[in-house]
């Protein structure tokens, strides 16, 4: 039985590339997570926004993939992952949105108005 994890990627109207992950990331599928992120990075014009709001579980293996790519991506996450991301220190390496509970998901969020640096 594999851990459920799906990806969707798109380019927002303002040109930002977004990778949306849904499911759980653990030791068994962190390689898939890494591959999907790399693919999205390859297709992205600038920095990649990784949307983790649909991720119910993220362990250190998944975190590690994000950390080694932190210079090239930004993250949006829900409050569920907030302690984890804060503890891991990734918030000091790149911008992580939504940790304190941002606007509604799906539509344009407040952070989206700002162009990625």
């Amino acid at each position: 039985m594999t851990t459920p994890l799906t990806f969707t990627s798109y380019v927002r109207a303002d040109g930002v590339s977004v990778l949306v992950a849904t499911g759980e990331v653990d030791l068994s599928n962190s390689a898939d997570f890494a591959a999907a992120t790399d693919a999205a990075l390859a297709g992205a014009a600038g920095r990649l926004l990784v949307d983790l709001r649909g991720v119910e579980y993220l362990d250190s293996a998944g975190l590690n993939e994000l950390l080694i790519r932190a210079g090239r991506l930004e993250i949006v996450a829900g409050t569920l992952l907030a302690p984890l991301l804060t503890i891991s220190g990734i918030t000091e390496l790149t911008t992580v949105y939504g940790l304190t509970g941002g606007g509604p998901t799906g539509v344009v969020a407040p952070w989206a108005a700002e162009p990625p640096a």
Partner: protein
Amino acid sequence: MAVRDDGQGRKRAAAGGGVFAGDGQIHRDLAAVDWAATPLGRPESWPQSLRTAVGILLSSRFPMWMAYGPELTFFCNDAYRRDTLGRKYPWALGRPSREVWTEVWEHSYSRITTVLSTGQATWDEALLLLLERSGYPEETYHTFSYSPLRDDAGTAVGMLCVVSEDTERVIGERRMATLRDLGSDPSVARTEEQMLAFAGRQLTRNPYDLPFTLTYLYDEDGTARLAGRTGLPAGHPAAPARLAAAGDGEGAGDGDGAGDGRPGKDPVWPARQAAAGEPSVVELVGEPFAALPAGAWPLPPTRALVVPLQRQGAGPYGFLVAGLNRYRPLDDATRGFVELVAGHLAAGIGSARSFRAQQRRAEELAELDRAKTAFFSNVSHEFRTPLSLIMGPAEELRAHLAGAGPEVRGELEVIHRNALRLGKLVNTLLDFSRIEAGRMQARYEPADLATLTAELASVFRSAVERAGLAYEVDCPPLAQPVHLDRGMWEKVVLNLLSNALKFTFDGTIRVAVRDERGQAVVTVADTGVGVPGHELPRLFERFHRMENARARSHEGSGIGLALVRELVALHGGTITADSREGEGTVFTVRLPYGHAHLPADALVAGGGGPAVTAVADPFVQEALRWLPEAEPEPEPDAGDRGGGGSGARQRAGAAAGGPFDVVVADDNADMRGYLTRLLRGAGHRVRAVGDGRAALEAVRADPPDLLVADVMMPRLDGLRTVAALRAAPRTASVPVLMLSARAGQEASVEGLEAGADDYLVKPFSAAELLARVRATVELARLRSHHARWRRALTDAMQEAFFVCDGQGAVVEVNAAFTRMLGFGPEDLPYPAVPPWWPAREAEPEAYRQVADAFGALVEQGAGTHTLPVRHREGHRLWVSASLARVHDPDSGRSMVVGTFRDVTAERYAVRRESAVAALSLRLSRAGSTAQALDGALEELCGLWRAGSGVAAVFPAAGPPQVTAWGAPAAWDALDGGLREALTALRDGPRLAPYADGRGGVGVGLEHPRGPMAVWLGLGAGRPFTDRDGTLLSLLAGHLAQGLARAFQIDQQRETALALQRAILGPAALPAGFAVRYEPAARPLEVGGDWYDTVALADGRIGIVVGDCVGRGLQAAAVMGQLRSACRALLLQDPRPDRVLLALDRFAADLPGAGSTTVFCGVLDPGSGRLAYSSAGHPPGVLVGPDGATRLLDQGRSTPLAVRGRSGTRPYAQDVVPARALLLLYTDGLVERRRRPLSEGVERAGATLREGRHTGTRELAALVMERMAPPDGYDDDVALLLYRSPAPLEVDFPAEAGRLAPVRRQLREWLDRCELPAQTVQNVLVAAGEACANAVEHGHRDAPGGTVRLRAEARADRLYLSVADSGRWKPPEPEAAPHRGRGLALMRALMQHVTVTPGAGGTTVAMDTRTAP
């Protein structure tokens, strides 16, 4: 007797089935007894208890014997044989005890009966037994204890006796008591007869050592006179009233009717030998000794000891005859005792005789005083004539010898001045007596008061100014004259001025005259020392003198102001004084104008005349003598004194009569000079000082042979000077001769009470002074001889003796005190809280006891207390303290004298007696060997106040088992030295106490599981005496027996538990449950309580707790059937009410099943829903995570088969909340006699609340422990405890793909725990990391292992553990920088994380708080 060689060359007695194994003579002799002929039969057939007892007996080095079986067959060990049995050995072995101890059977049998019937040990301390072991009946004392011996069934069938001999101690204490009584006479001084009568009464009280005594004293002619006797009637032939002169030799007793009645023969007692100072022994054979008293014994003495009553420096006073106890040998101790008695008598006689001599002298002195007083009172009025005959010629001589040398003029001045002074004094006295008699001849004439007063005042000007004082005279003329007697007014003004000058040291003296409201007012004001408020009313009283006031002089009669008042009154006026202490005094005289108030016949016309007459001269002369400049100090000859210390040197060598070193203290310069001249003239060396303080300094600087001091002195008066001298050890013994002008009995008593040695009243003759000086010095030397003698006496006392001064400081201790407490006289004085008192901080209770005893003295005067004190080396002593408050006749001060008798041994003996009883009680109540050992160890530690106690049992296999009190209870945790000591005891003889000399004691004994060693840590400095050893041995014997009995209970109990468990409960409980079953402590049987859990098909769980009536196998059988039936019914139809209904029908047909109570429930562990019904069972208890508690008290109905076969039963539903506890139990847990059931239920709930954070199993144990009554449960208890949800336990293969499903399971379980979402997420991640680590690291090199995840939620905490079967690799940061992140995450998300690597795998344990 079969003997075999054990291969090491040692022979062992093997007969008797090894009971008598050992290589002593006693073993062989015991083995040789024909046991088959005794009621005990052959040793091979003896029960284990008898064999154990014999083993204890034989292995002990303490004297012991035992009696066992129906005829109380006699056994003893080697020590007993040696010390006590004597010739009865080996005959006695194996015989009935009645035959062995025929002569003391009366004593023994009653005690054995007590032991066998009550099972309690006896304790006899120092029992008198007349033993024939030394060839004569001998007075002996033994301390022994009989303790019961039990057979294998626990019945007392014999007794074991441990003995120790006390003869030396008992006799020693008895003699000490007599010596103490002799020394306890409260009256210090009395006659010889009184002293001997008192001593006689004390000696009569010891008819043991002194069946009779006779005291003979030598008269001057050498005849010995019977002065005291005890034990013998008057006129007994052995007690002749007189024995002929000691020096008469062969002619002793001849011709004297009161003689010994045996003319020509030796006297009855060897008076001559005694007179030579030699003691002798007299064999009491012959006629005079035919009918001697026996004292406390069956037969009279056969010998007497004659001891001289020694006198220091001369032949003996007499001799003491002491009839001796025939049951004791005449050894050194006996001789020493009689000699000490004689010493007491001699000391008493010496003291009585010297007291008599002193008394005689005191009476002579008193007679002298009386005569003198009478003389002075008769002749005082005769003074004036001789006085005028002195003054007149002296005046003339002054004129004639104006050209003579200064010495002659000086002498004449002295004569003149003192004649003036004496004249003034006599005049004043005569004035006063005239006034009193109404014979005062006054002549009142009109006078100018202001001028007259001013003139009188001017007379004093020079004296006032010389004193450095300001002098204001303000006397404006008055409008009209005042009628005055000029002579009287002169005395008024001069007395007031003289008074003012005497008490004023700086400031001003002011004299003023004014008119005020129709009266003439004269004031004399000073800025002197003032008068205290309480003295003011008495200021004008005759002879009243202010005590202790600071003044220029203490000369004076105390009559001046009284006279002034009388004189003013004669003028119809008044005088008042207004004063403030330290500020000054104002005297105000008010006189009326006119003459209406005066007797007409005393009025004369105004004649003028001189204001100041010759009367003024003495006043001024006297005042000038007070002032320092006026003092023509008679110069002490410096050469006389030489260097410092000459006084001491001379004193040591001074022969009777001097010369002596004398300090003279007098404020009157003339007197000082006169005394100095007088004493120097007699060859003495003199230092002269002007007041008490200077005298004190002079004496302290170099103590003289004598201080001659005036009573009245400024700064420090004579009485207080003496008191100060007596208070300091260095000067206390300096004799003091007091001088005073005050005659009379009272004054001399005051002086003597203050500590003066003699008292001389002025005036005195030169010869009298010199004689008194010599007598006082000599008497003081005699007194110091007495002090030495007294010292020897107190040191001879057997009791510790001490004296405290008025402030409580200890100023004297005797030798016995030093022996007892270790504190010697060299450190005297000791403070009021001396170092032998218990420390106030460390032992407040003991301190209070001692402080109270001394405090009570203030009210009660005397008392006897038993008090704890501390030896110099730190150990505790108990003393019987006799304390008394006494008046020191020398100093007049209140003091405390006390004696201490060491009663430590007695006190501990009482404690130990109760300890034997306490230990026996503990052991008899113990329900298991562990309890017995715990209790016994606590008792032993308590008894010896040991800081720690350890008992180690050495089983045949395995490590030593340790029970400890105040020490670690594990062999490996014990100190190495202690382990060695315990091992040595294991290998040593049984019941032989061993003390290591450093405060550790131990004893070896037999535990049913192997040899046992007990060790007590008493702490350094605590003595462990032979008596302690005896007791430890005795107690260890009791303990061994008690352990053997408790061991039988253990075995029975284990059997019962094994049986019960075989019947009870499911082998495997569902998760989340914990159960306990405890049979009643006694009687130990299987019971009818049960619990059960049944796994139902739908995942629910059936829960049953029941309690059948009764106990024993019958109840257990019923219980088994009901349990099986209930199980079957639940599986068939999981509705609790219907199960119970069916069970009703089943129970109705099952004998003994009626009235069983049952709780039956069905629990859905997923939802926590619980359906239940109760058949008369106590309610379940539910405790939520927040501590909220409620009872499952619905669905209740009657116990089984009570209502018949029909009807319905109620049924209730409830929910066990997440993280809540459910407790079901049988009534044994909560039911207590005379307490409501609800109270027990409430307590159970409280225990759950308190323990809701602990694990289920520990909590179940805690509930059982907390609810247990002190003596254990008296009914069976079954208990079932459940916590919802049950802990999660998941085992999964170590593969990454398994992580997600495991996570899902964990998430579901966490949801059931009803925790906050963030907590769930944190726990999930932490658990996930641990699992991932287990998969990734633990099994990287060894795939195929499993990982175990366990999670448990308690009230507000969640516990997680992840265990793998592999080995974690430590993170290698360089190879994989992210590897360590998992652990960091766990630590960040959970409160505690521990990683425990092991050979079989690694376990990560984490926990975190779950409540917000």
